[in-house]
């Protein structure tokens, strides 16, 4: 189950953080997302270690922590997508798929002429779309 998704901007500024748990652990998830930036930064700075190809946007699992696993995705504009999940064994393709849809949603959200780049994403549509994507994540993996 996905507990949290986040969009982090070019300058490591949070653009969107949404948790999908009922528990009051927003702060913890903030910390997890915040800490994951270390790993993202490291992978960006040391591309040799990060992955097979340069153009790979999917960063894979950044690190496991406590009960969570954190996955990352880096766009060409250095915007980071972070996914925190409780599923300890998810298929790579599922995560890739998820991030692809996530990216599409993000692109649509920032294409809004009223969106100021670098500002937090406040679009309701984006939030709704994200929750749909998050919900369908479990389903698609089941199929």
């Amino acid at each position, binding site marked *: 189950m996905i507990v949290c998704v986040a969009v982090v901007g070019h300058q490591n500024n949070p653009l969107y953080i949404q948790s999908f748990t009922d528990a009051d652990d*927003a702060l913890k998830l*903030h910390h997890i997302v*915040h800490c994951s930036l270390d*790993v993202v930064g490291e992978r960006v700075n040391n591309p040799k*270690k990060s992955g097979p190809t340069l153009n790979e946007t999917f960063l894979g699992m950044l690190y496991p922590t406590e009960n969570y696993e954190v996955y990352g995705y880096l766009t060409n504009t250095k915007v980071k997508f972070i996914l925190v999940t409780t599923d300890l064994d998810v298929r790579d393709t599922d995560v890739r798929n998820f991030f692809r849809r996530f990216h599409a949603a993000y692109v649509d959200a920032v294409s809004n002429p009223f969106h100021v780049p670098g*500002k937090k994403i406040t679009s309701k549509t984006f939030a709704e779309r994200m929750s749909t994507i998050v919900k369908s994540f479990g389903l698609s993996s089941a199929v």
Partner: protein
Amino acid sequence: MEPDVSIETSSMIRVAVLPIGEVPSSLMRDYLSMLLRHQAIPLSAISSFYTEHQKSPFANQPWDSGSLRFKFVLGGAPPSPWEDFQSNRKILAVIGICHCPSSPDLGFVVDQFNAACKGYSSALVERCFAFCPGDSQLEDGSKKGGNLMLFPPADRETQELHLQTMMQDIAASLLMEFEKWVLQAESTGTILKTPLDSQSSLSSEEVIKAKKRRLGRAQKTIGDYCLLAGSPVDANAHYSTALELSRLTGDFFWLAGAMEGSVCALLIDRVGQRDAVLEEEVRYRYHSVIVHYRKSFIQENAQRVSPITFELEATLKLARRELAKEVVDLLTAAADGAKSLIDSSDRLILYVEIARLYGTLGYDRKAAFFSRQVAQLYLQQENRLAAISALQVLALTTKAYRVQSIASVSKSSFAKKETGSGHADSTKMLHQSVVSLFESQWSTLQMVVLREILLSAVRAGDPLAAWSAAARLLRSYYPLITPAGQNGLASALSNSADRLPSGTRSADPALPFIRLHSFPLHSLQMDIVKRSSAREDWWAGSAPSGPFIYTPFSKGEPNNNSKQELTWVVGEPVQVLVELANPCGFDLRVDSIYLSVSSGNFDSFPVTVDLPTNSSKVITLSGIPTSVGPVTIHGCTVHCFGVITEHLFKDVDNLLLGAMQGLVLSDPFRCCGSGRLKNVSVPNISVVPPLPLLVSRIVGGDGAIILHEGEIRDVWISLANAGTVPVEQAHISLSGKNQDSVLSFASEILKSALPLKPGAEVTIPVTLKAWRLGLVDADTAGGKSATGSIMRHSKDGNSPALLIHYSGPLTNSGDPQTNEIVIPPGRRLVVPLQICVLQGLSFVKARLLSMEIPAHVGENLPKLVQVDGHCSEGAIVSNNKMEKLVKIDPFRGSWGLRFLELELSNPTDVIFDISVSVQLENSSNEDGLSIDHDAAEYGYPKTRIDRDCSARVLIPLEHFKLPILDASFFVKDDQADGVASGRSSVFSEKNTKAELNASIKNLISRIKVRWQSGLSSSGELNIKDAIHAALQTSVMDVLLPDPLTFGFRLLRSSSEPEDLGSHKEYTAEVLSSASKGSVLAHEITPMEVMVRNNTKDMIKMSLSITCRDVAGENCVEGAKATVLLAGVLSGITMEVPPLQEIKHSFSLYFLIPGEYTLVANAMIDDANDILRARARTDSLDEPILCRGPPYHVRVVGTA
């Protein structure tokens, strides 16, 4: 768990270092630093102290390359329950440190040391180092002997050498003790237990098992000692045995321990080498170590004791050795393991270690995260020391969370500045500030961290740290904090401040937010103008000349404030406007705020400000420059909430920039309702030496000068030098609107008063003339008063101002070598002439009236103005003022006399006297006599207009006719008619108009309407436009004579003088002509008609004369003719030469007395263009009829 462990830790001999007696902490630190140099003692160095008592068990000791390693534990440590398991955990030696001057009794020192050593039963060697003993102590100490080592006072080098020797001695002693222990253990065996072993009575089976295990454990411990003795090969041999034995007995815990030892032995053996194979070996073995530790977990003991700490320690040991990714995995595993730790102090150590490891990896955020966990664990301990630790740990995290105190930032940036180049550094700093803006969006985390810092600082009793944290929290996150929370923070700030000594400074500003608002320009009274030696008239061009307040050429880009330069004068107070904002939900009292100037040549005056909830305020901060040089203003120093802080403008600018881009939560100024302000940057401010300062005062009060429209008045302006330097140069000019209202100013009086010493005063007169109302009002609406610092003074902006540029003496620069003359800037004083113009006489309308009074036919020819008027009338004027009145002479008539009627009304409540004067100018310069009369004026009696009345003033326009109708007036007309080329005609028409206008202007300028009201006020009506309008249509008639002039005369007596030589004669003539001029009926009346040609051409014409009676009937011809005629009256063909006159005589015989009118008409043949133009006809064929004025003939007698 222990902090700071590594794989090599197993080979370190633990030495407790204890202060004995009183040792000042600084000295203790010094002594310890000397000790720390000897963490590794080479075996080769201790051979001299080593004596082999028996065969050494360390057969393979590398005497040439190996070494003994020490780990100094300051203050010692309680014995660990795991001592048996890992011998390096034992305190194997104790070193006491004594500072002799503070502990005079050495015996007591020895006792104390021995007592301290009792706590360390495992210690094999004990020494007490006594530093700096006195002479008596030296003597005494040598007697004591034993463990007390005296270090005689000497220079540092000697002492270090001494210490080294001592350490080598200790090392040798330890080595010998190890040998002893190993030999004993090998022979007799020991019982080694760990808390992990079952404490309850053992069953028989277990006893057997334990016996089997004992051998393996002994081997492992011997291996440990070999390792401590610096003999890895021997250690390895023992570990191998131990591994086998423990594997057989299933003693996994000890197996793991032996394996750990073997890895350490391997590393010690291959110290300095680092290759992939070794790394792989270490990694492989350590992973199995971790696995075996995990295996040794016994469920039944889980509540009491767990090998998990060893597993985690092993993990950390491996992590410390590894790099990046693997470390992360290991640390993640270690962090997961933290939950199963029982002891919270173990967890603390684990988190500290994890944080440190992440920190070394460069994972700042992770490190910060775990540091925060550490801090939370400290805070759980609820005591002051733990809180201090928590505070320190949290302070480390602030950098990662971007909430660090400015103090720490500036410290690090200063450190950087020393190493790096300046430019790169500044860009980096800029970058950092931008990044910090971005990262400041992790407000959820940042606020938590700051809150924890505040909490721990309060608990730790560090009011300054608490103040700083609360300040940062409040300043950065006020929009996210409820008003109640803001109040809480405010009280936290004041509570902290209560515990701080007054005058404490904090690097982190709290509230309010301060931004630069503006630098007010110099007031008009003391404006500063640069001057250069090259130009004598340095004032020219420096003032806004011309009608425009703003000229694009004289000033640079007004928006580009960065280039703006300000000049301040030593000793003259200056002001700077700043805007304060308090966006929080409590009333803020700023105890004092003043400009913070780093250049040190400025005295600033503090002010106190109260800022209510959610408000902003612009305040004026003032100060006095104290010495010449540049002034740099960075910000304000604020004393608020009991602490002094420095608020930099730059920071707020960054903040506002961030707010504009949406990076920062909110703009504190906008949420206080203050408008967006353009970015004001601090201009370059330079301070110049004292300048003179002129102060102006209008004599008779500084209020507005109240004038009626057109009034002329003198005012006196007094200028005083209020500066400390004399005025040596001064220049007066005008500026502003309505400059022509200043008729004159006496600049020469000011010039003659120079140099104006300090305190001296000079008064200069200025003549003013009030302008007309209504014309300029429209301008003021358009003109922005904000733009004009120049025009700010006058409310309506219509008043002119005197610009006085002045400067002091040239000064020598202080530098004697160059002997350069420094040109101090000049100053500009703007003296606004506040003129308030009241409505005066108002002009209603102007009309041109023509008056036609027929002349009587007399014995004289009517005085022809055109002919000889100039001469005679000029004489009359000079002779008798009465003649200024316009008199209608019945014999002269006034055919074609025109009057300008001005209707004036007086809406005011004063009485005006109007006097009209006409300035006569002899327009025909051919007349030789004209010189005297050039400036002659015709005055007319005054007309008085009471208030709320209107009156008409007549101005006769009789003196303006030109004597000759010549072509010059129509030159352009000729062209237009002759050459019908379109372009030239248009052009010439324009010319004609211009000429016409010029002549009208000329005419108008000679008419002056002056008024006077009361005793003091007088002026002139400005009605030129109105006259112009009235005259426009008929100017030709006014100015130009008719081509022909006709006159009738009775030819009765030829003896009478025709010429009007003197005035008296003329008057008599006029009087007598009333009787003489009458004609008797029934008598032949000889008459003559005179025709004068006013043109310069010969005129050919046919003259006819008609005589009409009262009824207007022609009474010469027809059946009922009442007048008989002798001579020709019609169709008289004559040619009049230019400027000549021709007379034609005839006789009439009136049958019936009465009034008759004689009119002469001339039909001009072959009229030229001029005549046609005059007659305003275009057609060539049409004959031009010239009608003369009517002449009356009164015929008396009986019918």
